[in-house]
């Protein structure tokens, strides 16, 4: 089975700082990690491989240093890694990112299942996985918490919904995004770590992909960010103390203006 995992390098959340002037993430000097949700996708890929065999390819789009995330993926047991990196990709929104990743996956050729984390912890959009599925014109199952069955032709997966769970059967190829309930990611092995140092990271630029110039990077991004701001912190509520009769009266007085009475 040809398994593709899409990963993203993100700033370590425990260190996140916002520049108050520009309202953007301060990335200088902040440690980078593989997006935690993508760790579950990598683990699920490894488990599928252990069960039905195949190869796992991890792919990411990002700056040259995103290579570190790919090497970490190798240390965990991923077979091959591809880095899509080009100045022309800079400024991509979720649409352009999905498009570029999909073109990368197309160039890769065969794929039976594409695994993604449910969302990245920096942007929190949860749009890139579904975007890739649309670009490749394949079915998608979002927020999967358990894969009941997978073979060469079909998958049966449980997806989380707000009310409970849905059981979905799909043909392959398919895009599956996973939630953290699906597994416990393993730690790297020493053999994996040693291999990750020497392994080749395949690098593709815009010229290597079959991409339209106006579909990539900032030019290919329909999303326009008007403003980014840190919402003001909510002040804590008011506590009325005293006998019930008294506090009810105080409460009534306080909410009277908004009741319109």
């Amino acid at each position, binding site marked *: 089975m040809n398994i593709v995992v899409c990963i993203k390098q993100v700033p370590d959340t425990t260190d996140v700082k916002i520049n108050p002037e520009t309202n953007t993430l301060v990335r200088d000097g902040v440690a980078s990690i593989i997006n935690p949700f993508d760790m579950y996708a990598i683990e699920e890929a490894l488990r599928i491989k252990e069960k039905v065999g195949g190869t796992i390819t991890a792919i990411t789009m990002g700056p040259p240093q995103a290579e570190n995330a790919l090497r970490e993926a190798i240390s965990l047991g991923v077979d091959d890694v591809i880095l899509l990196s080009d100045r022309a990709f800079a400024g991509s929104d979720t649409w352009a990112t999905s498009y570029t990743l999909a073109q990368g996956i197309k160039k890769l050729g065969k794929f039976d299942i594409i695994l993604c984390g449910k969302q990245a912890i920096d942007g929190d959009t949860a749009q890139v996985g579904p975007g890739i599925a649309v670009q490749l014109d394949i079915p998608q199952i979002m927020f999967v918490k358990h894969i009941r069955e997978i073979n060469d032709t079909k998958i049966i997966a449980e997806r989380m919904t707000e009310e409970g769970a849905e059981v979905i059967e799909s043909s392959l190829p398919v895009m599956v995004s996973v939630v953290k309930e699906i597994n416990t990611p*393993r*730690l*790297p*092995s*020493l*053999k994996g*770590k*040693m291999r990750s*140092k020497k392994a080749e990271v395949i690098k593709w630029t815009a010229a290597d992909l079959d991409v339209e110039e106006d579909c990539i990077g900032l030019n290919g991004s329909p999303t326009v960010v008007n403003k980014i701001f840190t919402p003001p912190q909510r002040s804590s509520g008011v506590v009325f103390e005293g006998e019930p009769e008294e506090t009810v009266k105080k409460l009534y007085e306080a909410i009277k203006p908004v009741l319109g009475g």
Partner: protein
Amino acid sequence: MDYLLTETQVEIRELARQIAEERIKPVAAHHDETEEFPWEVMKVIADSDLFGVYIDEKYGGFGGGVMELALCTEEFSRACGGIAVCYAASALGTYPIILFGTDAQKQKYLPDLAAGKKLAAFGLTEPNAGSDAGAIETTATKTKDGNHYILNGTKCFITNGGEAEIYTVVAITDKSKGARGASCFIVEKGTPGFTFGKKEKKMGIRASATTELIFQDCKIPKENLLGREGFGFIVAMKTFDKSRPGVAAQAVGIAQGALDIALKTAMEREQFGKPVSSFQGLQFMLADMATKIEASRALVYATARMVDSGNEKIAKESAMAKLLASDVAMEVSTDAVQICGGVGYMRDFAAEKYMRDAKITQIYEGTNQIQRDVIAKNLIKEALAGK
């Protein structure tokens, strides 16, 4: 301190530290309280390939030695000395096979031990024999056809007892020769006549299993003899030369873990409007603790490297490393409880566990009195030889 580790050693230490932080620390208190064997951690260590760091690549290991084993043991011990010893005791049980096994014996046992599929244990101590290996009462009698040995006797205080699959056991094959009449055998769990006695309740390292090994007409094939008949005492001594730096590394890890907690607590706890770490009385304690730990670590690493270089005369250095590091671990962990104050004495807080775990390092694999004996005898021997 920069110990100029190789690239592989840095990777090993990093991985061991990650396992310690993410998988051992969160469960250390649970295993200390329940005395349940930490199989889930053993599985993680096995999957990470670290059981094989000191085993030859030919047998599925990573081709390292005592230094690599020490790095892992130290990092695991920093999180939990009890869980770490389950790992280290497997190496202790494996060394007799590495040192004296034939190629066939190595092919048969080492790959599973390197992969962590099986644990090993070493059985020497008996109620009346420990440091005095010549007083061993467990016997191994060759059958008339010469194809088997029959083992009878009881070993006590055996780390990994009951949990390990492979046991290297010292028994007497010729009583008339004293210590020269001892031999070492490989005994597999499940062999008829081989059972386990009571599991001990311990002061510290409570995650580890310590049991009796009971042999009642336990019949093993002659192929399970390690080395030759009469080699038992030598097997044990050569094994301890290799394993003592491991115990020393365990002590360094325990001491470091205790200092970590003491430092953090001292920086967080405020009295008289400032952190207690700002008071010189505590600062001097912390400085002494850190310095002594670093000195032990330096001696342990230097000894481990000397052992790995193939040098045969390592008894004195191995003893010194174990003596210094374990005495420092006891001292530092006691001071760590002192620095943490009242909370340090509470069992819901991790500091006191390091103190309980540290004590055994002064006792097992030869008490520190025996270590001093080894060191002194070697000093005198060297002086007589005019070195």
